[in-house]
């Protein structure tokens, strides 16, 4: 049990590439922190530096108040679960789990007791005498977890532990991990590239991009109040819609019509060096079928007409895809996000809009539909810096705020 503090931790490789840059992070005792980001964002390198598998180029790493920069992994008393599980194939499940205890030179009776206890927690007892080759993926995953929890370390580090499981098992194991962490109360740092895992598992989520921390906070806060374009686009599934918005005469010209803006925002975008082009972001659930809106709500947003492309009925809601004319929103962040999703080269004409409408909506494919969206919930981003302009003291206030 211990807190972990990263103080301006950086990693520079001999060939000059900077994998991690000045990461400041304080992880409290017992906290479950998720490092998330697209591949190559430095999250795994950060984890390996905490583990001691990578040297720290500069900055300080403290575990339980003690500087551990120069300590070998074995002296840091932390356990790690690898993406590949890394089970010792020549040992049985029992020997695998007993390995760290045997290295710690505990006596046989203690080792057996601890292994049996950990096996019981993870329901591995009937498998103890099998070799890893004779286990299923999910079972191997649990053995890897068992090997980590068996010696009650100060902290757990998990490097994408669920990414090799199939979708159904992954959801199931997610709750196992979550329950186990709560039960043991051990500080945990968990790396993933899956934003769903990040949202559902962590007490706090750290979003990284290009070796730098973008935003740190509880999942809901990152979702509601993204600090920049990257965070907004990365968190959420389906992801936020981004539209090009031109500033003109105190209004925003967008493909959804002209959007009025409040005083506070106007002051911000009227400065001399203020950008004339913005990116408007809006989440799918902030749209609604205009027919289903009462007058009270209607006043807080605006409406537009667009042709319906595709309707995906999810039972509880309908995902409706619209095509809107107009310029596509462009920014380095958005291209990076598209590349990470593997959709960089998949771009149709115009912009596609994803909306999440109520299940009662009578929307049909091919028709033109009137759709309402909530102006309180839109975000405006500066395309050059990616900064969220609607954010005031960390809270997103929409476009109309005075």
């Amino acid at each position, binding site marked *: 049990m211990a807190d972990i503090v990263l103080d301006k931790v950086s990693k520079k490789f001999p060939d000059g590439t900077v994998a991690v840059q000045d990461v400041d992070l304080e992880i409290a005792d017992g906290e479950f922190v998720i490092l998330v980001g697209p591949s190559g964002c430095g999250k795994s390198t950060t984890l390996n530096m905490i*583990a*001691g*598998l990578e040297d720290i180029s500069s900055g300080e790493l403290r575990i339980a108040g003690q500087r551990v920069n120069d300590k*070998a*992994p*074995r002296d840091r008393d*932390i*356990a*790690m679960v*690898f*993406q*590949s*599980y*890394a*089970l*010792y*194939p*020549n040992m049985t499940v029992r020997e695998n789990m007993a*390995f*760290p205890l045997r*290295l*710690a030179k505990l006596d046989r009776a203690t080792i057996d007791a601890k292994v049996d206890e950990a096996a019981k927690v993870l329901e591995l007892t009937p498998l103890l005498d099998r*070799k*890893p*080759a*004779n*286990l299923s*993926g999910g079972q*191997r995953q649990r053995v890897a977890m068992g*090997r980590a929890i068996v*010696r009650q370390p100060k902290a757990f*580090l998990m490097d994408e532990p669920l990414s*090799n499981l199939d979708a159904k098992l992954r959801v199931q194991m997610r709750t196992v991990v979550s329950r186990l962490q709560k039960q043991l109360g051990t500080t945990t740092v968990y790396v993933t590239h899956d934003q769903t895992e990040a949202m559902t598992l962590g007490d706090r989520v750290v979003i990284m991009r290009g070796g730098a921390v973008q935003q740190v906070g509880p999942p809901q806060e990152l979702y509601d109040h993204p600090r920049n374009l990257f965070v907004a686009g990365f968190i959420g599934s389906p992801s936020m819609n981004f539209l090009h918005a031109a500033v003109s005469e105190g209004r925003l010209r967008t493909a959804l019509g002209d959007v009025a803006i409040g005083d506070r925002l106007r002051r911000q975008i009227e400065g001399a060096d203020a950008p004339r082009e913005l990116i408007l972001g809006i989440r799918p659930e902030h749209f609604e079928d205009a027919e289903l809106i009462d007058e009270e709500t209607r006043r807080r947003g605006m409406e537009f007409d667009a042709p319906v492309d595709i309707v995906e009925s999810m039972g509880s809601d309908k995902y409706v895809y619209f095509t809107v004319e107009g310029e596509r929103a462009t920014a380095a962040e958005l291209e990076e996000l598209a590349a990470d999703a593997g959709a960089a080269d998949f771009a149709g004409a115009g912009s596609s809009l994803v909306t999440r409408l109520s299940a009662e909506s009578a929307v049909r494919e091919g028709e033109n539909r009137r759709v309402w969206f909530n102006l309180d919930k839109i975000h405006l981003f500066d395309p050059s810096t990616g900064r969220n302009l609607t954010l005031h003291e960390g809270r997103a206030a929409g476009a109309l705020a005075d």
Partner: protein
Amino acid sequence: MATETTTRAKLRWGLLDVIVVVFALIPVLWIASLSFKTPATLTDGKFWPREWTLDNYRTIFDTDQFVRALANSIGIALIATLIAVVLGAMAAYAISRLDFPGKKLLVGVSLLIAMFPQVSLVSPLFEIERQLGLFDTWPGLILPYITFALPLAIYTLSAFFKQIPWDLEKAAKMDGATQGQAFRRVIAPLAAPGLFTTAILVFIFCWNDFLFAISLTSTERSRTVPVALSFFTGESQFEDPIGAICAAAVVITIPIILFVLFFQRRIVSGLTSGAVKG
């Protein structure tokens, strides 16, 4: 139709295999057959001996020179194999795991040694060993054997080490192992098939060497079997030693066969399965 083709293909391949095996084994069987013949029937040209005898075997084990040479051979080959495999394992592990300056050079030089014509080194080695007092001693043969076996060992072993997932070593370190413990308790057991394969290859190389053995020895003190064989003479000038030479040739193949059979059982594939993913 399909089955017909496969049966015919099987037959064709089977026939080819038989031809190759017969081609390879006939000289060996011929020598074995000669070793059981009496001097009178040696040159009768028959494949199966008409009169079976064990006299040839008795002769070679009666002469001190053969037994002594056999002991030399076994000793020198085993020691050279052991040292070459241990050193080779350490070098190969470093090559497969670390990025150090001069790594390419090291690999290149070791390849160069393996390709160097040994015959051009014999005279300088002879002079050097005489100066150093290594001539006609066990170390005098063990040292060059190690030198020439090392590149072989490094090459085969680094191929094996590269197959072992690096995550295993990281996991061992996280579990509290030192670098040495991680190597001994996790990596080495998994590389065992590679170690045994290498050991077999190196042993056969040392066991079969004739060039160094005849140039760097002069007495029974360190003469190995291949050389001792060439020094075989009959009881008298007029006696033909062929029967005895054949018997000795059969005898010296036996350790190799035993060695291979013993280690072959350990060369099981798929030892690393289940380590990662799946």
